Structures are given as structure tokens and as C-alpha cells.
């Protein structure tokens, strides 16, 4: 809350270099799935994957992150492919005392990493469709493996209390999965799961077939109505409304900075870093600094403040925190009007 308030003061002073609400650490870029819509990492890019850091180095990276952020998202690639993931999560919780740890996984290897689960506060699992055949084609693995992921989700949904995490399904909406979205929501209600929806992106933009789809718009309007009635749909109303017509939003990417497996800080955001056109990059490696503030100052010195009015991408991981931070009155209104939104905070979005 203090950080939120201090960021509001920064905004009032026209300072866009906002302090992070969460840090997202890609522990590995290796992946065991081959999702058709994946534009970043994935099995088909494993040949070019950056090797993960050793446990002691990864811990040092987390230590620096901890000095600037108290909420941590661990993701990948598939983070459970990191050889020391169980120990890393355990130590992040006990040694570094992150206030909140979120693990984003595809769920395939969950049964082999139960040791890691008690360290996480939120477990986000990808599930785009309950139709196994459809989903198998989407994620590029055999039907049998798909069924095993589905069984894992059901199993670990039932064991939320045992491990002490809150589980959330992240569903990518694509023309292929649109018709099954409501069934997915029902599944989440039955299994006491939160669900977050994000439209499929192509080239940092929403997929054309979704933009022109009336079925898609109707679905999002329904989701908003369900959420108003208390459905466990993660993300704010403002975020869901943005998904209806993809209106521009003011982006504050430094609220959710990303750290690559080797410790490089991407600044100001992942799309700028990947474009490599001088607007952003990897200005500092967290293994070369002692504190987050030091890394943050170096990044700012290299690339200045994040730009205003950027509409270069349309990514959930940046929209939600940006809206929350820049529209406090909207969120206050939402909080007061819809009881189901009172859980709404940075926990309830699924960073990709």
C-alpha cells in the first residue's frame, strides 16, 4: 500500500519510473510444451534457450530482487524444468521472506515438485480448453500428456488447503478456444479455482480473428456480468472492459519488471528489450549489483524514464498493474460496488 501511494505521488510529479509492485523472474527459458500461440519461449525455441543459473547465483539474483520488491512471480519457459526449483522456492520463502510468491507453470511436472508447492502462495496453471483434443493441438503435445496435465490440475486444486496456496487457471482466449470458455469457468467454480482470461496476442497485438469476432465481445461482456455477480474471475473490471475493444491504456511497465534467467534486467519492458532499437534493453545484470536500487538507477541512466503513451503491445501482464496504479478512483469504485472485486490486487492477474 505504501508503495502504491508513493507511486501515486511519483505520477503526480510526472515521474514515470515507478517502483515495482512485483518482480517477474524467468528462471529458465526452456519449455516442455509447444503452445501454438507462444511468442516468447517454448519447446520449439529450446535450442536457443538461455541456460539457467546455478542455485547460488539464482539466490543472489532473488536477493537483489528482494531488496526492491516483496512480491515475486517465478515463471519461464517452464519453471519446473529448473534443476533446483524446489530448493530455490523454499529458500525464497524461508530465507528471503518474500511476502508473496507466485509460481506460473503449465502443470505437467507438478507431481514431481510437491516440495516446491508449500512455498508458493499462488499457483497459476495454464488451461485453455477442457476439450482434451483441442487443447492437445494447441499446446503441441500428445493427447495422453494433455490428459495428465488436466488430472494434475484437478488433483492440485483439491489440495489447495493442504499446501496452502491459492490456485488460479490462466486461459488464453483464441478463436479455437472461445466456445469452451464458459465451460472452463464452470470447471473453475466447481474446483474452487480463480480464473484469468487473456486474449491471444500475435506480434504484440491482439489476434485479428478475435478483434473482429462478435462472439469474443459477447463472451467478455458475459464475463464482466458473471464477475459482477461474484464469479471467481481474476483481474479487475477495468481490465476486462479494456479487453472488449482494446482501447489504448497508459502503460507503466516498471511496475512489473522482468528478470531473465541469467539475471539480466529487461528495461523498461520486454517488447522494447526484444526490439533492440535503442528504446530499451538489458542495461544491468543483477549479479553485478548489490541492491535493486543500484540496478534500477543504472537502468534509468541507460534508457531514461519509460515512455508515455506507448501502444506498442497489448499484454495482460502490463495492462492490469498499469490500470490499477494509474486509475485509483476506478479501482476504489470497483472495490466499493462489487464485493467480488475486493480480492482484486496485483495477485489476481497472471503475468505471462
Amino acid at each position, binding site marked *: 500500500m505504501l508503495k502504491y501511494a508513493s507511486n501515486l505521488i511519483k505520477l503526480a510529479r510526472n515521474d514515470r519510473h515507478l517502483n515495482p509492485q512485483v518482480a517477474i523472474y524467468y528462471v529458465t527459458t526452456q519449455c516442455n510444451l509447444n503452445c501454438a500461440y507462444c511468442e516468447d519461449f517454448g519447446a520449439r525455441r529450446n535450442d536457443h534457450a538461455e541456460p539457467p543459473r546455478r542455485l547460488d547465483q539464482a539466490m543472489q539474483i532473488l536477493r537483489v530482487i528482494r531488496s526492491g520488491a516483496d512480491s515475486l512471480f517465478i515463471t519461464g519457459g517452464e519453471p519446473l524444468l529448473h534443476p533446483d526449483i524446489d530448493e530455490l522456492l523454499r529458500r525464497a520463502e524461508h530465507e528471503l521472506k518474500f511476502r508473496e510468491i507466485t509460481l506460473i507453470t503449465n502443470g505437467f511436472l507438478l507431481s514431481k515438485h510437491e516440495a516446491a508447492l508449500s512455498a508458493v502462495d499462488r499457483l497459476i496453471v495454464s488451461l485453455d480448453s477442457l476439450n482434451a483434443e483441442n487443447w492437445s493441438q494447441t499446446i503441441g503435445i500428445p493427447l495422453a500428456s494433455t490428459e495428465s496435465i488436466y488430472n494434475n490440475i484437478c488433483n492440485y486444486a483439491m489440495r489447495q488447503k493442504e499446501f496452502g496456496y491459492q490456485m488460479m487457471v490462466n486461459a488464453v482466449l483464441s478463436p479455437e478456444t472461445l466456445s469452451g470458455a464458459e465451460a472452463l469457468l464452470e470447471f473453475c467454480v466447481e474446483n474452487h479455482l480463480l480464473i484469468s482470461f487473456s486474449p491471444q496476442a*500475435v*506480434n*504484440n*497485438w*491482439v*489476434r*485479428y480473428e478475435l*478483434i*473482429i469476432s462478435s462472439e469474443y465481445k459477447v463472451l467478455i461482456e458475459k464475463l464482466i456480468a458473471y464477475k459482477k455477480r461474484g464469479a471467481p474471475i481474476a483481474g479487475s473490471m477495468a481490465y476486462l472492459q479494456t479487453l472488449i*475493444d482494446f*482501447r*489504448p491504456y*497508459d502503460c507503466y511497465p516498471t511496475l512489473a519488471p522482468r528478470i531473465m534467467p541469467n539475471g539480466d534486467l529487461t528495461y523498461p519492458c520486454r*517488447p*522494447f528489450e*526484444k*526490439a533492440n*532499437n*535503442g*528504446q530499451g534493453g538489458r542495461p544491468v545484470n543483477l549479479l553485478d549489483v548489490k541492491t535493486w536500487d543500484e540496478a534500477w538507477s543504472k537502468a534509468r541512466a541507460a534508457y531514461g524514464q519509460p*515512455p*508515455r*503513451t*506507448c*501502444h*506498442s*503491445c497489448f499484454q495482460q501482464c502490463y495492462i492490469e498493474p498499469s490500470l490499477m496504479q494509474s486509475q485509483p478512483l476506478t479501482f476504489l469504485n470497483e472495490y466499493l460496488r462489487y464485493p467480488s472485486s475486493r480480492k482484486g490486487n496485483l495477485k489476481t492477474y497472471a503475468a505471462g
Partner: protein
Amino acid sequence: MPLGDSPRQKSNERQCDVLIIGGGMAGLSAALHLAERGLKPLILEADPRFIGGRLAGGEEVEIKGWRFRLEHGVHGVWSQYRNFQSMLARHHLRPVFTPSQEELWIYRDRYGTRKASVGSAIRYSIFPAPLHYIQLFLRSRFWWMLDLRDISRMFHVWSLLIMSVGIDPFREDQPMEGLTLNDFVKSWTPAIRAFFIGLARNGFSTHAEEIPLSGFLAFLRFYTILRRDAWTFSYLPEDGGTSVIEPLADKVRELGGEILLEKRVSRLEDGPTWKAYCDEEAFSAKQIILAVDASAASSIIKNSFGENALYFPRSLSNAVVRLWFDCTPKPGPESGTFTGDFVMHNFFWLDRIYASYRKWNKETGGSAIEVHIYGPQEILQNADAALLAQVITGLYQAYPELRGHLIHQHIQRNAATHTLPNLGSKDRHLGIETHWTNLFCAGDWVRDPIPSFFLERACATGIKAANAVLKTRGLDEWTLVGYLPPEPFVGWIEKLMVAGRKRRIAKRNAQKQSHQ
């Protein structure tokens, strides 16, 4: 960097699937959408070296060992350019843009030169559209631009602006023939008039006396008055050829299309199939899409059919001056407008926009600016040296810290290809479907109810022209991406005003009938 394919055969007549005349954004958009449906479009581009029309890349200039590519001029990609962006993204061609962070208004009169940042106040206004311009008055610098006369006439200005909310010239087919922006703003006070004329001149590239009122009202509606975030835009990360056109042309070829350069079509011939003549060569096809600029389209139509009664929006020429300095000016917005006693009309700091210039700035500390001069003709007719001298003098008044640091200057005269958006009467202004069967038009000058302008309009009409061809072939047409609706408050005002106008018209008609 020549990009065209050489003609495959030298015979006098070549048959092709669909012929597209003009390789600008409209022609390439049409070709891409046809090729994706399995057709084999052939594009004929008049330029001998570069495809892309007004978005083409150009020659390179060398400054102290650094090479920079020229182009027609810096282009903005606005948030409402949704078909353009969706088309590029669908083929993984959408680059990561350079966001426009702020726009500076530089105004000079007899009292001196003043500056105010205006863009962010409009798009981040706390007031809903159409009241969002009120935010400007919360900025002290904006007040310094005004005098008492401006303040006393503010309500009058506002009520005229609201007019654009109640009338949509493109959709309602309201050409407003003969009326110009000058008629609209003539009773306005100096600074406010300069501000809006500056805004319009940036959009229309010409003077208030020449800006058609219908085009201006449609422009206000599309770019600013209906939504705060409509005034959100980015720049391409490099010149248009490198960032967009050349990758797009490659994609057209990859999908089976073909592009021939240095093919200036002089006339068309109707018959069992259409024929297009370039010098002694002829190209025949069942369907032709005419996707050249308005002036070239007018000339082709006249040569082909002796048709003189048709209306074509004017095409405008301009001058672009680029200056390189061995130092960087004080930090400030990357672009803006000059109004009042300046010869130039807008500016773009290239080292804050383009990757190659940014790199140069980082390594050498140098900077470069591009300024556009939109007229009037007597100014454009000045010799290069005279025009450069006036630009440099004006620039030093706005940025005195640059005096003595100029290291290179370049002036470019752009031919009259830039469209002055306007609406002619239905029977005289060509739409996508024309009086001639199987001849379609595409481009930002074409009559169509879509609200967009320039790059987006070229792209959208290109897709619509492709759809017209696909329809004749019984193939699936493409759905256009819709534009963002007005904000709720302005939407409500719009409904009230439209209903009021309808009532007035009905009343007038009833009175007329009772007189008869």
C-alpha cells in the same frame, strides 16, 4: 535498395490475375489480402527504385561516416489506425513503435516566442470528451500563449468545436462544398486560431483557406474530439520503407504476388478484360484496382475515358528540411508544431524517434531535426538556399542553444501526392466501386463512409477494394476492424445533436410542404 522484380517477359501484352496500379499502402494492402485468398496480384509501381508511395524509404545521406535513410517524411501511427496495425500484426510485421510522449506548441508573434506542451494534456485529460481540451487551461504555460481576447471568446470557440460532434460529414454524406476551415475560424481570436490552424495544418499539410470544412470536421472526429485516447500515437522505429513497406512487399511476394517497378500506367482500356498501358507495354486482367494518389488517378481516368467531370481531392506538395547538429538541444518533446511567424509548420527530433539516429546521438552527442513546410506556394517556390535560411533562422529562435552547431542540411521537395482530404458529391467523387465494372479504387482520397484518414484510410480502402475483387470471384471477404466508439458523454451529446438536426429538417420540410 531497388526492390522490384524485373519483367518476366518482354512481350507487348501480359495477362495477369488481378492488376493493382500503385504500390503504396493502399495497393500493398489490397495485394496482400488478395494473395492471402490465393489470387496472384501484380502491382505496377511508377517509382523506378522504391515501392511504398508516401511511406517508401529513399536514398541515403552520409554525415561524417554515418548513413541515414531519407523518406517522404516522418509518419505517425495513431491508436485508431486499427486495420493498419492488425494487418501488420497478422503477418508478424508490426514493429515495436516509438511512442509519441509529448507535443510542443511553439508560437511566435510580435511579443516573442513561447512554448507550451499540449499533447499529453489532451490525451490524459481528467475531463471527458468533448471537454478534454479544458485540461490545457490547467497548465500555466498555456495561459501565457493567450491574451485577453482569446479568453473572452473561449465559449464561442468551444461552441463551434462542438459542431463537429453533431455532424459526421463522411457517414452523412455532407460535402459542405465551398466551405473551408477559414470560414470556421475567422471569428476566432489570434492565439486560439493559431493553435487550431496549426493542428489542422499538421493534419492537412496546407493552409486554413484551403482546408475543406467537411474534411476538418471529420478529422476532428477521428483524431480528437470523440475520445481522449484518440490523440495517442507513435512513430515507426525507422523510415517507412525499412519499418513497414519493404517487409510488407516481401510478404506479398512470398504469398504469390508480384511487384514491378518503373511501370507508370498512362491509361486504361475497358473491354472483355481490362488493359493498362505503360509506354509500349500492356497488362491485362479481369479486375483492376487503381491505388495511385488522387492526382495520378485523375490523370489516368482522364486519359482513359476523357472524363473531366469527376472530382478528385487535391494532391499537395511540400518541402522537408533535415538539419544535423553536433550537439543536443535542451530536453523536450520529440515533436510539435510551429505557428505564428514561422516559415515551417512542424518538427520531429529524429534522434528521439528513429533507432539509427538514436544510436548516432548516443555515440556522438549529435542531434537531427526534420521540419515540414506546407506552403503557401509562394514560400515553397523560394530557392532551396532561401528556404533553408528561413528555417534555420526560425529554428534558432525556438532553440537558441543550437546556434553555431549546424553540421549538415538537406532539403527535399515532395511532389504533389499528399491528399487534401475532402468529400465531393456522390456522383462525381469515385468510391471503391466505380462507374466501370471491375475497376475499383483504393487510397486515402477515395470516397467511402469509413471515418479514417491517410495511412489507415489507404489500408482500409485497400482491403475493401480487395473485398470487391474477392466478391466477384465468390471468395471469402475480409472483415474490417472497427474503430473505437465515442466516449459515453460525447456519444450522448452526439445523439442529442443528431436528433435535434433531424427534427429541424423535418420541421423545415413540413413548412415547405404547407407553403406548396
